């Protein structure tokens, strides 16, 4: 996968870092041709160095990905954040947690961000370059579904600064796995390590009769079988608990409010696995 093809480049762009940049027939008419031909483009983006410095105080950087939308990327990102912030003292969660989102920059709930790729990339770069995180243990980066501008930009800017890897979220049904396999292959293409896959909304337990039902049935074996087939780690499954959605809507932490629920226990075990994956030397016998 070429990371050095500008968004306004023609289809057969050889890549700005290539020897033939600006010199092949596909470069005719490309707005970047003269820059490429002069050799200036072969210098790496200076912002990547700045991002590297800015993020040097952050120990672990994790991307939360899924090819599919609505599988719980943001909900789980929030849950992981609360869980990681609580550890090890299980205290002072709110002071341990810092958040940046374009949502804070919008004036009203109806404001739409109607941007094409380049503008989104600029915003992402600004988030990475200009936010002062201070000393931070974990930076979780929540992403939209897909394999497009946001994902390419994040990986392009962050791989040089050091990324621990990606956590991939899915739901059990094939129509989600179909998109998630694409996301996993995207990670392989851009050399992004995968920390593991979490299956969300696995089983729904009826609050009245306490029997389980599969809302999104895993007719093709669900996430666990997929991870076996693709040779990547499976981190666990989180049941579908309607209270999670309710807590999200109210902006409260499900983990703190409902620590004894099955979903909280599952999430805590997943958080532990993620911590182990990020600190491979610290825990013995947990890897592989």
């Amino acid at each position, binding site marked *: 996968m070429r990371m050095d093809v500008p*968004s306004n480049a023609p289809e057969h762009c050889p890549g700005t870092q290539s020897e033939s940049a600006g010199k092949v027939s596909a470069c005719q008419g490309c707005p970047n041709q003269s820059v490429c031909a002069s050799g200036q483009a072969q210098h790496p983006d200076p912002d990547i160095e700045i991002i590297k410095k800015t993020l040097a105080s952050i120990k672990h950087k994790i991307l939360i990905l899924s090819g599919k939308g*609505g599988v719980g990327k943001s909900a789980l990102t929030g849950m992981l954040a609360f869980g990681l912030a609580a550890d090890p003292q299980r205290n002072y969660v709110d002071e341990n947690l810092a958040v940046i989102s374009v949502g804070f920059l919008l004036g009203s709930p109806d404001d739409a961000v109607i941007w094409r790729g380049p503008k989104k990339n600029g915003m992402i770069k600004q988030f990475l370059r200009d936010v002062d995180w201070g000393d931070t243990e974990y930076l979780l980066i929540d992403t939209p579904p897909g394999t497009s501008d946001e994902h390419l930009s994040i990986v392009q800017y962050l791989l040089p600064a050091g990324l621990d890897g990606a956590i991939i979220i899915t739901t059990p049904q094939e129509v989600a796995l179909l998109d998630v396999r694409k996301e996993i292959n995207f990670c392989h293409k851009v050399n992004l390590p995968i920390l593991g896959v979490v299956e969300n909304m696995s089983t729904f337990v009826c609050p009245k009769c306490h029997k389980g039902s599969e809302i999104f049935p895993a007719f093709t074996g669900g996430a666990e079988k997929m991870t076996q087939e693709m040779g990547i780690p499976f981190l666990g499954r989180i049941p579908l608990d309607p209270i999670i959605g309710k807590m999200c809507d109210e902006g409260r932490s499900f983990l703190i409010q409902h620590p004894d629920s099955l979903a909280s226990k599952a999430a805590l075990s997943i958080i532990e696995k993620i911590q182990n994956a990020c600190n491979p030397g610290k825990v013995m016998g947990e890897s592989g």
Partner: protein
Amino acid sequence: MLEGVKHVIVILSGKGGVGKSTISCQLALCLKAQGFKVGILDVDLCGPSIPYLLGLEGQSIHQCSQGWVPVYPNEDQNLAVMSIGFLLQSRDDPVVWRGPKKNAMIKQFLADVFWGDLDYLLIDTPPGTSDEHITVMENIRQVHCDGAILVTTPQAVAVGDVRREATFCKKAGIPILGVIENMSGFTCPHCKECTNIFSMDGGKQLAKIAQVPFLGSVPINPEISGKEGGSIGFVDAFQSSSLFPIIHSISCKLTQSAPSKSDTV
């Protein structure tokens, strides 16, 4: 562009995984059952779901002198489908494209597919308000679009995203035909208790806030997530499921309210 197409409807949602593609397929099947000729154009390039949902994976696109021939699931050719899924070598291949390449592909889908005569073309979109959406809106403005259907799930986090999509429609000058609330409630198969897993009434509230019609609520039905061995069962399972009459009433609302393109031009 889209010369033989009478009605164009765009299926939108700011939120992913709310059932845009499922609702698109179900609406298409209902419109077909009403006797219309229907097309589905899937412009979700990174996550095309339509071929899987209609059991059409592995089919490919052919070229004729008038352009690309869409895929027809039935011999009667009353349902035509176009998706990037038909152009991928493997179902696991990612489409790692930035905006301009996606835009070029969508323009080609809109300009070069030989749909023939269609009563309805449903355009299924990815979540968001970015390249794909801007490109679709810019291009279909020339052909008269009936409007957009907003799909949401009931919880606030989805409704919040779909409100932004409504703003997008207003800015793009595309009328909103209405809101469909999907995954409204789940009836426990063991005790018949109905739980509102993803909260309730978010779609109605959204319709009220955006001052657009509320088209209906569609409950969760795990049967239609696809049967073992693929999704071939989707079409049959849907026709005989409890969802069919619900979607049918929504599609009737659409066909009654929509003036034909030939009437207005």
